[in-house]
């Protein structure tokens, strides 16, 4: 027998947990499927679980560590009665109400039936997709500077990317590495001015513009990378013992393809706040935000989704 609930929330980053706080305080007894620990797909707690200091979340004048902030979000949702489950949704059916969700075997009976659904599945990190990258993941190729920076004490490493995450991680990595070369495919960064200024002022960081990584070289661990200049086409070899990748994210929409309208860029389409193309299904956070993608905007949109769901459920009950 499927467990019935008024509101099912998929995802546990700032959006999902804020939606949980609001839905729980509205007495909707939400169930939150947090996702399961994985370095390649889910990330319970969201992208902030892999960061260090968060300086731009209002209310924390001295900053706060990303994982600590998310532990606080989670505790706050739990305090008001949200049920939090460390599990992965494997299938969802939105064709009729109540909506059905599966955890575990997608061929079995549905695990949950929900009157309203809030999607907060976020986005997963993009990889370069070049030869050698997959094979050497964990052997010098890393997507988590906070996890793996430690292993590059005194080494020279490369960071690919040009956004705030890439620069923040590059600066974090200079605590360990002797030199961090930031490779960016364009000739200017999309990172915020404050991050750019800090990175430019860091003696251990060197920038290489118009640079595309085309191959990761090494037998049992990273020895070098091959870099192509996107303007001249010239190829060169950069000797590094580590390669960190922070080139952005793609929205986690696999569960909903064919059931919900997506934008051309793959993000969930929403209208009038958090409404998706199916009545009773709401979306918040990075799965529907290709513009701002901040913890605070994700949290804000999670609040919107919970309020939209609450109002919609009220109308259904009338």
């Amino acid at each position, binding site marked *: 027998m499927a467990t019935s609930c008024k509101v099912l929330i998929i995802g546990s980053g700032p959006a999902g947990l804020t939606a949980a706080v609001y839905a729980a305080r509205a007495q909707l007894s939400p169930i939150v499927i947090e996702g*399961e*620990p*994985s*370095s*390649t797909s*889910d990330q*319970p*707690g969201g992208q902030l*679980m*892999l960061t260090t200091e968060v300086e731009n979340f209002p209310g924390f004048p001295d900053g706060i560590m*990303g*994982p600590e902030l998310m532990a606080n979000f989670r505790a706050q949702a739990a305090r008001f009665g949200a049920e939090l489950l*460390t599990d*992965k949704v494997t299938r969802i059916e939105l064709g009729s109400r109540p909506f059905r969700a599966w955890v575990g075997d997608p061929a079995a009976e549905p695990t949950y039936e929900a009157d309203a659904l809030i999607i907060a599945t976020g986005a997963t990190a993009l990889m370069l997709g070049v030869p050698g990258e997959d094979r050497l*993941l*964990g*052997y*010098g190729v*890393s997507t*988590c500077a*906070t*996890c*793996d920076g*430690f*292993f590059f004490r005194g080494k020279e490493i490369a960071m690919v990317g040009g956004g705030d995450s890439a620069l923040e991680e590059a600066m974090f990595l200079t605590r360990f590495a002797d030199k961090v070369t930031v490779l960016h495919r364009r000739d200017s960064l999309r990172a915020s001015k404050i991050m750019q200024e800090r990175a430019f002022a860091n003696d251990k960081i060197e920038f290489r513009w118009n640079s595309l990584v085309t191959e990761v070289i090494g037998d*049992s*661990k990273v020895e070098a990378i091959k870099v192509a200049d996107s303007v001249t086409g010239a190829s060169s070899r950069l000797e590094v013992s*580590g390669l960190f990748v922070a080139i952005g994210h793609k929205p986690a929409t696999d569960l909903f393809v064919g059931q919900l309208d997506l934008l051309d860029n793959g993000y969930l389409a929403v209208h009038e706040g958090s409404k998706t193309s199916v009545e009773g299904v709401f979306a918040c956070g990075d799965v529907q935000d290709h513009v701002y993608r901040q913890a605070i905007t994700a949290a804000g949109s999670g609040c919107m989704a919970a309020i939209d769901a609450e109002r919609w459920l009220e109308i259904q009950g009338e």
Partner: protein
Amino acid sequence: MSEKITTLTDATFDEHVASSDVPVLVDFWAEWCGPCKQIAPALEEIAEEQAGKLTIAKLNIDENLDVTRRYEVMSIPTLLLFKDGQPVQRLIGAKPKGALVQEISQHLS
């Protein structure tokens, strides 16, 4: 932490993995590693459920650099499975419990 999980150090590592009658799954971890903390509950459950077939041990890489370097750990969480004192399998990165159990099952009798 489960009583079934042993904390290892550079000093105790060799004897522990060599003298074990069953395979030992060693969790290379650190306090500052978020994904390491996320897989910790799964490891505790596996330690309970596979008792008699497998033991689980934790090695803090911050405090135990010798063993960490010897096995060339370059990313955490890394799980190394030892059988008769020899490493037979390496799992890198956080994985859900089911996937962890499935991946090491070939080495469990």
